[in-house]
């Protein structure tokens, strides 16, 4: 065991898994000598050489497109998009090929790979460095989307992603990269993709979140406890496919539901989960299932970002509203 930050846990996952699997190839912009702009790939080139961890030319479509070829031939590419806001040149390769090869070839060829990308706001960055567009990726059939919220999960989920038989988009909450340390086992371990986690058991309301937003969700849960309100907190962990079972069982127990996430509201993760709850828990509900997300606007630059991100207070207030709801 050692205490690691989230970005160190990502690095550790790559390190231990590359030792076990010689077919893992890590490449992207600045990932080699520098070890990535966030240092997620630090030390990999030194240990594994520049055939297994290297700086590629600067072109995101080419990162994903070459990874298609490598994975079909049996390698396991783990590519880094430097920021999720710069992954869009790769969109065509991902939606048209990465997500489709298994189906297109009826299983003759697979494009199992991991596409890592830091996402989310709150780090006072330039334009294009703060978005949470996971819903766009989650909308694509044929790929899985995973978002960890803490160092322990980051390592276990990333190793699971590298062992997964299908392509995984692994989004890393950069706001949390260095904000917390957690004890993480030294060896390789996995956390099942597709399974949400009940972080705190509770009886009055189900609060669901994931990634960077979990920080405020945990704080809200704690604050409400001191007010005598028992929140069941769920960390979604895998955005696609959704672990409906865990969510439905929880809401059937609590009768109230709130999902909180960064990123635009319309056609988002919140809307999807509210539908799931409405369809499956309609008669168990004491209050309308609710979502709280950012508005449908371009993410403001840092001077305006506090207006866009969701605070602990906002979550607490919304939960009180749902608890006090009378039809």
């Amino acid at each position: 065991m050692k205490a690691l930050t989230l970005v160190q846990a990502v690095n550790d996952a790559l390190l231990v898994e590359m030792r076990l699997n010689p077919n893992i190839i890590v490449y992207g912009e600045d990932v080699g000598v520098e070890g990535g702009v966030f240092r997620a790939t630090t030390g990999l080139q030194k240990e594994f050489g520049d055939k297994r961890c290297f700086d590629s030319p600067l072109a995101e479509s080419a990162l994903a497109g070459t990874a298609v070829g490598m994975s079909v031939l049996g390698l396991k590419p783990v590519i880094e998009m430097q920021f999720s806001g710069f992954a869009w040149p790769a969109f065509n390769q991902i939606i048209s090929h990465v997500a489709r090869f298994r189906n297109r070839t009826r299983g003759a060829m697979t494009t199992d790979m991991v596409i890592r990308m830091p996402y989310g706001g709150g780090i006072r960055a330039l334009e294009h460095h703060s978005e949470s567009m996971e819903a766009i990726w989650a909308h694509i059939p044929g790929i899985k989307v995973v978002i960890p919220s803490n160092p322990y999960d980051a390592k276990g989920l990333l190793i699971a992603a590298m062992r997964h038989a299908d392509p995984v988009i692994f989004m890393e909450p950069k706001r949390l990269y260095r904000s917390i340390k957690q004890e993480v086992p030294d060896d390789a371990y996995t956390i099942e993709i597709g399974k949400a986690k009940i972080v705190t058991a509770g009886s009055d309301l189900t609060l669901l979140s994931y990634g960077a937003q979990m920080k405020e969700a945990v704080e809200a849960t704690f604050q409400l406890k001191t007010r005598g309100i028992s929140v069941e907190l769920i960390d979604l962990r895998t955005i696609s496919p959704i672990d409906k079972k865990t969510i439905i069982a929880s809401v059937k127990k609590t009768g109230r539901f709130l999902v909180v996430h960064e990123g635009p509201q319309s056609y988002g993760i919140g809307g999807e989960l509210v539908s799931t709850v409405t369809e499956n828990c309609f008669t168990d509900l004491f209050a309308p299932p609710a979502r709280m997300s950012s508005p449908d606007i371009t993410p403001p630059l840092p001077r305006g970002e506090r207006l866009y991100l969701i605070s602990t207070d906002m979550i607490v207030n919304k939960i009180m509203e749902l608890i006090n709801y009378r039809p």
Partner: protein
Amino acid sequence: MFESYDPRQGKRLQIMDETGNINVSIKDVPLMSDSEILIAYQFILKARVADEWSVSLNRQGRLPTYPPGKGQEANSVGSLMAMHKEDWFVPAFRELGGMLYRGIPLSKVYQIWLGNERGSHFEIEKYHTFPISVPIASQCLHAVGAAYANQYLKNNRITICFVGDGGTSEGDFLEALNFAGAWNVPVIFYIQNNQWAISVPRKIQTRSTTLAEKAFAFGFSGIQVDGNDVLSVFAATKMAHEKAQNNQGPTLIEGYTYRLGAHTTADDPTIYRKQEEVDQWINKDPLLRLEKYLQKKNLIDGLAINRLKDEYKKEIMQEFEIAEQTPPHTVEEIFAWQFKQLPEDLKEQMSNLNIRLKGSVG
């Protein structure tokens, strides 16, 4: 060897001309033997018969959309003949001759054009062939990744990738050339410059005089060949193959050719090109010059040609019927290949779809 055929100096490799005469002054390139020329002729003929048959199947309403390759067959046949069986083949979608040479059953190809994913089930160890790629030029990057993998796995396999003249304007084509050069991987890019991208002529795509010259910007050589001369196609590919095997990196080949048919069976070329232009190219047909050559050499005669045509037609019809008669998809099949293991959520959607299709609730 590529230096003597620098496209920037207006050179284009042609070994056999339109009359079936071989330019004997060309000695610095690998030449096909007569028995190889006969094999090439047979595959080009077979692709031609299949192509014409496919267009007529479309007219009968038995085949939805089909992209004819008539006139271009020497490009994929000649280049694949210069490759080894274990080398990787990354097609665009107008390489029927090359696919037949690879041994991919025509019934599979017809399944693809009939709209059935089962046709693209190309067993890796059997064919070393990627599925056809519909998003133009996106496959060029797959080829570079495959070439990286081959280099990493040290298996000495070369990758050949096809793209059209229109495809050379796509970012993915240019990124692929750049990555291939930067990584110095064993890959050959083959442009089938058939002069048209649907209705858009080659000159609208780029101000470059040739497409082959683009290679030099990425640090490797390019060559333009007469794509209707299977000997030139073979020679250039063979040289590129040798170069790749010696770890000397990628090559770009531009096959200068012509699409005699429509873009697809849904296209009407009379809107955008003149019959005189087509007529000029009919004289340059790759099949005709091979027939002239083989007849001159007494390697084939009119009777044998007709016999081959009949034989191919019979085989092609049989293969088409196999494809046509494949049982229809089930709900289970259209879900089964989304992931290795069907997630719970998809299982639920599958059973809901089954219920919906049966028109009953519960």
